[in-house]
């Protein structure tokens, strides 16, 4: 059994880099330090993988050689006038670089999955700007951590433990002590009330204190975790304070906080159902911290208001920086969605939704973003890399995608790959192939190869490079 240390987990934007993997007979048999999601990926990857590339013939997907599949893909792409190249968030930066070159060569549209998650955040960042940092800075310095519209406990399970409240930093202690104290407090309260109930022989009810910040005595020197969400998430359960907002009212709450931070009076008693007193307490907490961080998730970007919500959040942080040091960071989902934005930006100047049809990069989300193009039925072929738009896009967009010739490069069998015309089962980046990925804070990390891929599964980068070579051969003779 081979033990490989410091492996990077290719699942979410946290890119935990302390994973230990045990390999036997070219198979991962055990992992250490991962969360449940990472563990499931390392131990169960490739269970449903096809052994060879597939090409659709007479309506059925038939096995084919890599060469045939490459040739067919190149034909589809060269015959197309306006192809879309989509996905890119769960593959390596090296593959993305080749993808961009391919998109430029064939004059297509290239877009990554941020178009349906943090695309609005990027639009707001382009409007307002963003005070950013690396996660290490937060681990060592942040004494107030706010998760707004994101549930790291479920989506980025080790985020809190590695980078924020439960991590032990140079200048900030871990907050787990106060968490344990609170937990035992709750337990004692529960037991006492049970005893009281037994003595009084009746059921006791306590009014739930919904909107009141706990007194700050919790522990002055320990960091605090605040969660703002529409429902009590698992992250909210470990938080020092949870503020429940009504769905689609984030914008109002953020703007109200901005007014309070700027010393303006709110001439109402409540905003979106939340008492102003509660918001004042939260504003006080924000102003009085040494270094605060606001993490926001898809709860902000994909609820009513979209980019305007993020605009308000960024502006709130800008206002807070007049009073203290405050930072803000989007919680990126796929392990390399940040990398997709980064590589797109350095090669084309734009982070997503890039149109090469005029021979130079053009960017106008809404016009050049993939979902909009598909819904308008403008494209005539598609290449999807490491993504499953058929499951996630609006039905009308997915319909256009599968009605046109479609090439899919994906290690997994997905609804998209099942409806494709050419399918390449590729190697898993970070397990069967090396590659660079960017953590959500834009720190690049080199993913490792821990096992050999099956013989007909090449890395995405290699498949794309072969398609590009074939396309050039057809186009240029």
């Amino acid at each position, binding site marked *: 059994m081979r033990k490989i240390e410091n492996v990077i987990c290719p699942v979410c934007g946290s890119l935990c880099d302390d994973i230990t993997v045990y390999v036997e007979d070219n198979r991962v048999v055990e992992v250490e330090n991962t969360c449940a999601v990472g563990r499931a990926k390392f131990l169960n990857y490739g269970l449903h993988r096809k052994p060879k590339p597939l090409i659709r013939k007479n309506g059925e997907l038939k096995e084919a050689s890599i060469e045939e599949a490459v040739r067919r893909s190149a034909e589809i792409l060269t015959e197309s006038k306006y192809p879309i190249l989509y996905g890119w968030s769960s593959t390596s*930066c090296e593959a993305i*670089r080749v993808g961009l*070159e391919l998109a*430029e060569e064939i004059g297509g549209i290239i877009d990554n999955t941020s178009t349906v998650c943090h695309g609005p955040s*990027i639009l707001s*960042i*382009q409007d307002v*700007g963003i005070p*950013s940092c*690396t996660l*290490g*800075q937060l681990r*060592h*310095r942040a004494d107030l951590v706010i998760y707004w519209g994101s549930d790291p406990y479920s989506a980025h399970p080790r985020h809190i433990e590695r980078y924020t409240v439960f991590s032990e930093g*140079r*200048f900030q202690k871990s907050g787990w002590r106060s968490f344990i104290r609170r937990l035992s407090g709750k337990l004692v309260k529960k037991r006492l009330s049970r005893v009281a109930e037994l003595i009084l022989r009746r059921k006791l009810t306590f009014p739930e204190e919904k909107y009141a910040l706990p007194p700050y005595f919790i522990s002055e020197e320990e960091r605090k975790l605040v969660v703002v969400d529409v429902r009590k998430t698992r992250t909210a359960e470990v938080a020092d304070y949870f503020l429940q907002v009504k769905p689609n009212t984030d914008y109002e709450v953020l703007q109200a906080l901005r007014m309070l931070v700027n010393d303006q009076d709110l001439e109402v008693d409540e905003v979106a159902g939340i008492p102003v007193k509660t918001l004042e307490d939260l504003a006080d907490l924000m102003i009085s911290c*040494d*270094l605060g961080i606001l993490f926001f998730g898809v709860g902000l970007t994909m609820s009513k208001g979209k980019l305007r919500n993020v605009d308000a959040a960024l502006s709130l942080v800008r206002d807070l*920086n007049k009073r*203290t*040091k405050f930072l803000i960071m989007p919680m990126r989902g796929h392990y390399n969605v940040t990398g997709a*934005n*980064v*590589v797109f*930006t*350095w*090669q*084309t*100047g*734009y*982070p997503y939704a890039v149109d*090469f049809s005029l*021979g*130079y*990069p*053009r*960017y106008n989300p809404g016009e050049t973003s993939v979902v909009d193009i598909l819904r308008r039925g403008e494209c005539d072929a598609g290449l999807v890399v490491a993504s499953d738009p058929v499951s996630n896009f609006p039905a009308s967009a997915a319909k256009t995608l599968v009605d046109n010739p479609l090439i899919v490069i994906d290690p997994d069998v997905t609804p998209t790959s099942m409806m494709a015309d050419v399918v390449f089962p590729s190697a898993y980046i970070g397990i069967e192939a090396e590659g*660079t990925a*960017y953590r959500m804070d*834009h*720190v*690049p*990390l*080199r993913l490792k190869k821990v096992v050999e891929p099956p013989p007909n599964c090449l890395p995405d980068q290699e498949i794309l490079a072969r398609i590009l070579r074939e396309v050039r051969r057809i186009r*240029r003779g």
Partner: protein
Amino acid sequence: MALLIRNGYVYDPMNGIDGEKMDILVEGGKIVDKLKSAEYEVIDASGMIVMPGGVDIHSHIAGSEVNAGRLLRPEDHAKDVELKTEITRSGVGYSVPSTFTTGYRYAKMGYTTVMNPSMPPLEAKHTHEELCDTPIIDKATYPLLGDWWYVLEYLRDGKIEECALHVAWMLYATKGYAIKIVNPGGLEAWGFGRNVRDIDDPVPYFNVTPREIIRGLCKVNKLLHLPHTIHVHTNNLGKPGNYETTLQTMKCVEDLSSGDKPCIHITHCQFSAFKGVDWREFYSGAEDIAKYVNFHKHVTLDKG
């Protein structure tokens, strides 16, 4: 392949050639008097300038901070585009050009070498990835080491040799070229939204002053025999009255130079040469800086 560049106006300051019309002969990668081989390529440079390739020792062309700026300028990109050709990649330009366009445009301007002057060590891979996509020109990059915790701790404890070993490893690990110091101590203080006032203001929690950082890394640089001196962006950059900080920064390593060899480089000095107490009474302190530099051989600077 030998090369004959014919009839150009040659500029070569090092050899005192100032716009003379002459031929340049190249063989075996060197400029020669006479060509040995009979076969050579001829470039007709009539009416053109022939000069050594330009070297830009300080231009932010790659890395996370550059890409962050690039992301923020979509409207600039839209009005300055480069079409793809058979041999070149497309791109966008203006305020922060895309990587390919950066390489092509530098080459068009006659540059052959560009130094990317700041690379946060954690972002080294990002910087190099962008440099890989910057074609034609030669590139290198300077890792930011003035506020690296290990460096601060070694210098606080006066461990110059240990610090040198660590810096050597950092240069190896980040594939860096020279030691870059930006606002010494100030970057660390900025982690808490603070700054250092002058070169003797200690860094919060580290008990080391900017003066100690500059002197320490200057000694490290000497120990390692690096090709470039420490590359310093001074404290108080962009603040009226900062010419004094700049003078102090240059003075603080005066005793560390050996012979005529420079031991400190002050970069983008135009932003570190302000006189006056505030923006209303602000005026240039360039004269004082120029006087100092003219009488001291241990300093080099660029205006930026």
